[in-house]
């Protein structure tokens, strides 16, 4: 008998006793052993602890207990989310040797739900990057073309799902770090509304924009994971008190108004990207949705706004890595200042240092009003523009990225890399939710590469976005395409 593939099917089969969590896990471990030497998605695979978790699920089923809604589902975890007793480096030398003493809230909830954590995935250092090339532990390749990037910063998680190693992986999204790699790897990636998934145990980069979310093959699986992770947590005062609605997994899109921003379907995009948005619009229309033309002018300011607010918050949050209480301390220091400076300078990579200096500068006396405060005002413009649109449309549809996966090493200058996130950062700035789903492929230099579109929904409209993505996937087959 062949084992089920999707998270929902695995959980149903394990719960009913038609297969065991142990069998599902062994298949996952075998697939990682077969595929990951070419991809490098995993920093660490914890077969022993995973086997213990799978056995516990099987024991609960055998004794007639409830093993949870995600019973036996193997999950990979981005290396900036705390799992008790496991190392966590955030892709940085500064956290060499660190072992987390506690579980993130999302992890705690997934464990209670019966999920099986198989290992940690590589990411750009402190989640700063769009290619997963800037990781102290090594880079990750795109399963569709091994000389191309998987996107970032959650590239390891995206590649692990795209290559079929795991059905679910967790990422984090501060400016597109779930949606962009999902698009470049041809899978589903969901960025929840700000506050939807508690940030407790997620290493802070820019807390007003950071969110944990799932990578999966389908939106239905993403919804199943979100139902477990979402919900208020007293340990995160910024978590949303409004519960997430159950995601209804049937029906069509009748009565739904979906806006397409004319500024986002443009000549700057690869033709296959515009074609994917067009195909998704046609599919949505065939399912009963009304497609309307809208304008999102302020989103053009997104990258400029993001690269003031993000670095400002990062410079403050990364101050905690000082070589005193945890992480790496430089050797043979002469005094306290030397210890701070050398621990941090040796511990952080170039991109992290760049953002810390930029963030410190925009917050410093004389520049605060001209840069930081100005960016916060632009943030309100972007927020208000989305709010005005969501008063007239239910969802927005557009490209996730302007082009498919690029080759490793080609994005040498930071501004080009930053502009990769032009269509994703504004969701984080405004706190809204978004889901990238694959919707076709592009032929580039003789290789077939996936292309993604994103559905954006209003703050706390997570269930609506996931349902629409699911309905589109039920009527199409783009999400079933896998690398050869």
């Amino acid at each position: 008998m062949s084992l089920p593939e999707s998270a929902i099917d695995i959980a149903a089969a394990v719960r009913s006793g038609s297969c065991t969590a142990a069998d599902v896990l062994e298949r996952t471990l075998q697939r990682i052993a077969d595929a990951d030497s070419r991809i490098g998605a995993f920093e660490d695979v914890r077969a022993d602890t995973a086997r213990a978790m799978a056995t516990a699920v099987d024991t609960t089923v055998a004794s007639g207990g409830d093993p949870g809604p995600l019973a036996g589902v193997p999950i990979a975890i981005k290396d900036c989310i705390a799992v008790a007793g496991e190392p966590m480096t955030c892709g940085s030398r500064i956290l060499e040797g660190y072992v987390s003493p506690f579980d993130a809230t999302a992890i705690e909830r997934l464990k209670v739900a019966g999920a099986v954590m198989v290992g940690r995935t590589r990411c750009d250092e402190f989640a700063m990057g769009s290619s997963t090339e800037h990781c102290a532990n090594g880079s990750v390749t795109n399963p569709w073309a091994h000389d191309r990037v998987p996107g970032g910063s959650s590239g390891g998680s995206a590649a692990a799902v795209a290559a079929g190693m795991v059905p679910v992986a967790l990422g984090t999204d501060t400016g597109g770090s779930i949606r962009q790699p999902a698009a470049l790897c041809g899978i589903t990636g969901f960025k929840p509304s700000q506050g939807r998934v508690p940030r407790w145990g997620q290493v802070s980069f820019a807390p007003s924009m950071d969110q944990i979310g799932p990578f999966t093959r389908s939106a239905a699986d993403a919804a199943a994971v979100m139902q477990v992770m979402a919900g208020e947590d007293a340990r995160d005062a910024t978590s949303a008190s409004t519960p997430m609605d159950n995601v209804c997994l049937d029906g069509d899109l009748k009565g739904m108004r979906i806006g397409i921003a004319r500024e986002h379907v443009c000549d700057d995009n690869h033709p296959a990207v515009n074609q994917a948005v067009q195909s998704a619009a046609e599919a949505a229309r065939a399912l009963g949705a009304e497609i309307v033309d809208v304008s999102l002018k302020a989103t053009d300011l997104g990258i400029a706004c993001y690269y003031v607010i993000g670095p400002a918050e990062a410079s403050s949050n990364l101050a905690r890595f000082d070589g005193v209480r945890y992480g790496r301390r430089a050797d043979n220091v002469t005094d306290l200042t030397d210890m701070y400076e050398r621990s941090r300078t040796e511990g952080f990579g170039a991109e992290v240092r760049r953002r810390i200096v930029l963030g410190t500068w925009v917050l410093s006396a004389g520049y605060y009003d001209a840069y930081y405060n100005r960016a916060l005002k632009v943030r309100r413009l972007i927020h208000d523009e989305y709010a005005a649109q969501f008063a007239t449309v239910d969802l927005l549809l557009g490209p996730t990225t302007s082009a498919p996966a690029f080759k490793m090493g080609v994005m040498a200058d930071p501004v080009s890399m930053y502009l990769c996130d032009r269509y994703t950062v504004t969701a984080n700035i405004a706190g809204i939710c978004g889901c990238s789903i694959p919707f076709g492929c592009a032929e580039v230099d003789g290789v077939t590469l996936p292309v993604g579109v994103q559905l954006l929904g209003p703050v706390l409209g997570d269930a609506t976005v996931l349902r629409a993505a699911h309905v589109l996937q039920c009527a199409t087959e783009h999400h079933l395409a896998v690398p050869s």
Partner: protein
Amino acid sequence: MGHLSIEEIHRVAGLAKLKLTDSEAAALHGDLEAILGHIDTLQSVDLDGIEPMSSPLEHTNRVRPDEPAAALEQSTLLDLAPATEGAFVSVPRVLEGDGG
């Protein structure tokens, strides 16, 4: 016109407790000028009467009940520290002399 000088980069790096070599500062200078050149698009936006928004979340100052709860053990936290002495995290001497 440039936004910040090499000397300014060294000064700001020092505020953030980073110590850059001259060649690192020069490379960073080029990168930051390019980034700030893009960020300058914000300078021409009319923002009269717009209030700054530090977070998209409306709720603020939520507090949880002030009740004792389990916390991590002292020994767990000390185990994470690069250097300890007894029940303390130790760092290089800050004060001159014997320090009492």
